[in-house]
């Protein structure tokens, strides 16, 4: 049996039965009667100065055991720049910002005591939009931005620009000056998207033996550990984070937010403290996919060669830099992906506003940049008279082509994937007949994403009963990696059945560093670390077995729970017998492994302010949507949806198809239904399930998917992450299909019925960005 055939299978989920019976204990199911309950005092203005904050009366309220303010946790945290206090210190920067926290015996008592906090705030005129923030005389959201600790060097910063990343390759001015080109310019604007995990952000903190222990619903236990250390000014090693099953994340839980507060209160009270966002708090302070504004210009020849391209992408980071600082990097790889381009320059700016901070959301940045790029591509085709499919086939990235930072792409992947989409369409047929008199549109779009690699560690303990225990900091957020791909990988390496692989829940005290579950990285990074740990285990196992069998270790194989002599099935001895012997002679068999990014370099001078210069593992998708638009009401019905996804190697095809269906539907929400707007006082207007419209069963269709295997990947067994990308090109496919159906340019998402009807009736003004200067270079800091 080859390693591959022992690994690839449709392994069912081991956690399904408990989840179906309601027995799984998520973090917010672990609240016990002896815990203190914490509630937050949150700002009711978007900007202001705290003139007075007196909590003494609240401390005397019935049941109250502690009250904490920013003074109790003075450290700042952030990604790239440390600009974020745990609780507001002196300045309020967004509506809903935590100012103080009360821990009391019951939630009711804690809530009642909120009224006893004396708070005086001098309101300031808020900076609510990126247009306002970029005015030359705009008030600074962070007056002291110069003084912040820079955690990662390299980004340009200034005023309300939290971070700026640029990429520049080739002579763009020369490309635009060519006499044989036409210039096509497009502008796009997109709103925020709220993740809406069913389990909100929640943490349970205790103080044990002089250290904090936080149990929490997070994707990033090590980030929570480190941020808690920073804000409490403790050595991070004095914080332990453990993670029960997580009720959905989608990127929202890829940063620390309220978790450290529970450690702070636990230290103050000596009690276990729970803090759980109410649904309204969760939605009002969601670290949403950011709203963004995009202008792209391309210089294209009559033959359809893209000689030059330039773009400005503004990303609203809200009140604090957070993930957007990092995500400015991604524009070079998403907007700069998909196509061969002669010369290119892209700038991406994270802009501070007095609005709730934004964060990471599945295929962050890629989703809207892909929408913009694909709609722009269709506008190029319209302007120059190209067939959109032929234009794509001619121009998609192939073997040896350069990315925006000068990265050299390996192998032809997107081209063959487009051909596979043609074949898939032939198999499924098209659904134009279902349009039934409505306006029909079909569009095929492409997308470029990556696997966010980076450090992971794994330990494998081989037990005397023949089982193996895998210890990592991985978290099961629902995508199945911890219950499907990882046990499959370990089992395949050690000749075990996946059921024999025990997977330890994340515990920062038990496993080594991990950058977290996100960016499609778990199967790749933790998988690779696990393979390395298994190699260590294997080596020890075969050495012991070799001694026992008087055979050279290289002549032995692991198969179906036995150490066998190569080519002689049933020979040798059982793994438990070898483990028992080792335990008695050389000690228990345990192995450790580690993995990190290979850090593929950019071409010299091409990437500025980038956290990632080039993609170690690119991932591509081809998405196709068929829609019917009701010309009377603007309702868009998705008639059919097809996906060809580059998965490298499908370890569990059924699980991947489940991720594709779920990711596409989240994308349909983004493209069609889910709208976040901000009120005049900077609040997220949609803070409940009445007004924030998630797709429901009747709004979706079964996605027809074809898994494209064989593209190069450094992942174990050639895998790539499969859970992140299914959402990538949905906004693009729907946007392009609707534009073709209605015969009008689509430049904004979501395409709610009122917006589509507005487009049909010429009521929707095209986006205009007076704050984006005509000359590209004027939109950069240096």
């Amino acid at each position, binding site marked *: 049996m080859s390693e591959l055939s022992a690994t690839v299978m449709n392994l069912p989920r081991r956690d399904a039965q408990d989840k179906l019976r309601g027995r799984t204990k998520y973090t917010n199911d672990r609240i016990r009667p002896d815990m203190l309950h914490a509630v937050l005092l949150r700002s009711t203005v978007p900007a202001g100065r705290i003139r007075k904050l007196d909590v003494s009366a609240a401390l005397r309220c019935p049941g109250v055991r502690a009250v904490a303010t920013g003074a109790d946790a003075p450290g700042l945290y952030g990604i790239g720049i440390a600009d974020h206090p745990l609780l507001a210190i002196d300045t309020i920067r967004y509506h809903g910002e935590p100012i103080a926290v009360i821990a009391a015996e019951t939630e009711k008592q804690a809530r009642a005591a909120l009224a006893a906090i004396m708070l005086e705030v001098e309101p300031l005129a808020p900076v609510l939009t990126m247009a306002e923030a970029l005015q030359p005389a705009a008030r600074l959201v962070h007056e002291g931005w110069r003084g912040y600790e820079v955690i990662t060097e390299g980004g340009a910063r200034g005023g309300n620009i939290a971070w700026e990343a640029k990429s520049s390759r080739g002579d763009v001015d020369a490309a635009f000056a060519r006499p044989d080109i036409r210039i096509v310019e497009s502008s796009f604007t997109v709103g925020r998207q709220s993740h809406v995990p069913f389990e909100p952000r929640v943490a349970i903190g205790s103080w044990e033996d002089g250290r904090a222990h936080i149990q929490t619903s997070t994707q990033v236990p090590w980030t929570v550990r480190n941020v808690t250390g920073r804000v409490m000014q403790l050595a991070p090693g004095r914080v332990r984070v453990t993670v029960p099953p997580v009720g959905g994340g989608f990127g929202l839980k890829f940063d620390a937010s309220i978790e450290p507060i529970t450690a702070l209160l636990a230290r103050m009270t000596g009690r276990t403290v729970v803090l759980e966002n109410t649904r309204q708090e969760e939605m009002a302070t969601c670290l949403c996919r950011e709203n963004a504004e995009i202008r792209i210009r391309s210089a294209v020849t009559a033959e359809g060669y893209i000689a030059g391209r330039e773009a400005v992408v503004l990303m609203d980071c809200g009140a604090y830099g957070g993930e957007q600082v990092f995500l400015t990097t991604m524009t070079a790889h998403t907007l700069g992906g998909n196509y061969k381009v002669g010369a290119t320059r892209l700038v991406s700016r994270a802009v501070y506003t007095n609005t709730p901070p934004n964060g990471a959301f599945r295929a962050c940045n890629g989703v809207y940049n892909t929408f913009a790029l694909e709609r722009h591509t269709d506008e190029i085709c319209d302007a120059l008279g190209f067939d959109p499919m032929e234009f794509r086939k001619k121009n998609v990235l192939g073997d040896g082509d350069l990315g925006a930072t000068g990265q050299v792409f390996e192998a032809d992947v997107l081209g063959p994937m487009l051909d596979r989409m043609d074949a898939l369409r032939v198999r499924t047929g098209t659904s134009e007949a279902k349009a039934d008199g409505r306006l029909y549109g079909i569009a095929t779009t492409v997308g470029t994403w990556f696997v966010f690699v980076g450090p992971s560690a794994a330990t494998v303990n081989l037990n005397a009963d023949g089982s193996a225990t895998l210890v990592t900091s991985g978290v099961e957020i629902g995508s199945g990696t911890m219950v499907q791909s990882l046990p499959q990988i370990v089992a395949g390496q050690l000749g075990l059945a996946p059921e024999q692989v025990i997977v330890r829940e994340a515990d920062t005290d038990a496993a080594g560093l991990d950058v977290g579950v996100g960016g499609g990285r778990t199967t790749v990074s933790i998988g690779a670390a696990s393979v390395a740990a298994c190699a260590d285990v294997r080596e020890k196992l075969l050495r012991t077995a070799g001694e026992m069998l008087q055979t050279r270790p290289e002549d032995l194989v692991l198969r179906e729970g036995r150490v066998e002599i190569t080519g002689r099935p049933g020979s040798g001895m059982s793994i438990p017998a070898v483990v028992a012997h080792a335990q008695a002679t050389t000690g228990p068999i345990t192995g450790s492994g580690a993995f990190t990014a290979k850090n593929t370099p950019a071409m010299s001078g091409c990437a500025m302010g980038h956290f990632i210069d080039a993609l170690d593992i690119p991932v591509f998708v081809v998405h196709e949507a068929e829609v019917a638009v009701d010309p009377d009401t603007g309702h868009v019905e998705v008639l059919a949806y097809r996906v060809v996804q580059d998965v490298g190697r499908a370890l569990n095809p059924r699980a991947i198809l489940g991720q594709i269906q779920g*990711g596409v539907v989240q994308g349909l929400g983004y493209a069609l239904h889910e709208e976040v707007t901000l009120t005049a006082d900077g609040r997220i207007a949609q803070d409940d399930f009445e007004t924030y419209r998630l797709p429901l069963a009747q709004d979706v269709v079964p996605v027809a998917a074809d898994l494209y295997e064989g593209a190069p990947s450094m992942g174990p067994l050639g895998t790539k992450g499969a859970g992140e990308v299914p959402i990538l090109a949905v906004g693009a496919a729907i946007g392009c299909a609707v534009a073709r159906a209605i015969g009008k340019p689509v430049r904004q998402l979501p395409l709610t019925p009122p917006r589509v009807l507005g487009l049909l009736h010429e009521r929707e003004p095209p986006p205009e960005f007076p704050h984006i200067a005509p000359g590209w270079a004027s939109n950069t800091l240096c």
Partner: protein
Amino acid sequence: MTVTFQLNGEDCRFHGDPMTPLVDILRQERFLTGTKAVCREGFCGACTVHVDDEAMPSCLKPVGLVQGCAVTTIEGLSSGNQALHPLQAAFEADDAVQCGMCFPGMVMSLSAFVRDNPHASRAEIKAAMVGNICRCTGYERIVDAVAVCLDQARKAGQLVEGINV
């Protein structure tokens, strides 16, 4: 005020505010945390329980209104080592579960639905799911599993009374 009702087949007595949402009593006093309080406004369905055999959200149910009623939660649907309800088994077999938080409510809503609608079409199954949101799966596998489950029940000749545990 004291409210008495049957909870998963046993007498349950609650002393306190009769306007307390049933979901809070289930989760906070009886530790029946399979019932999830997600939106608390009747939109998501994660807190669905059966009250006198009808599926309804427990977040909007003041406990005072269940005086004398029989309440069944997900824990009561197939307790202990009992076999899974056919729907639960179908969801497991189809690899339908992801984060899993919507599923207890999904099972409670749809178990009442398949009992009452043994001949439901795919469109009717979807219409029955309007009050059960799932953020992970994109629904189709859930619909597939319900359809398979109904089909198996029909083939097994349980047509007349629909599916019962």
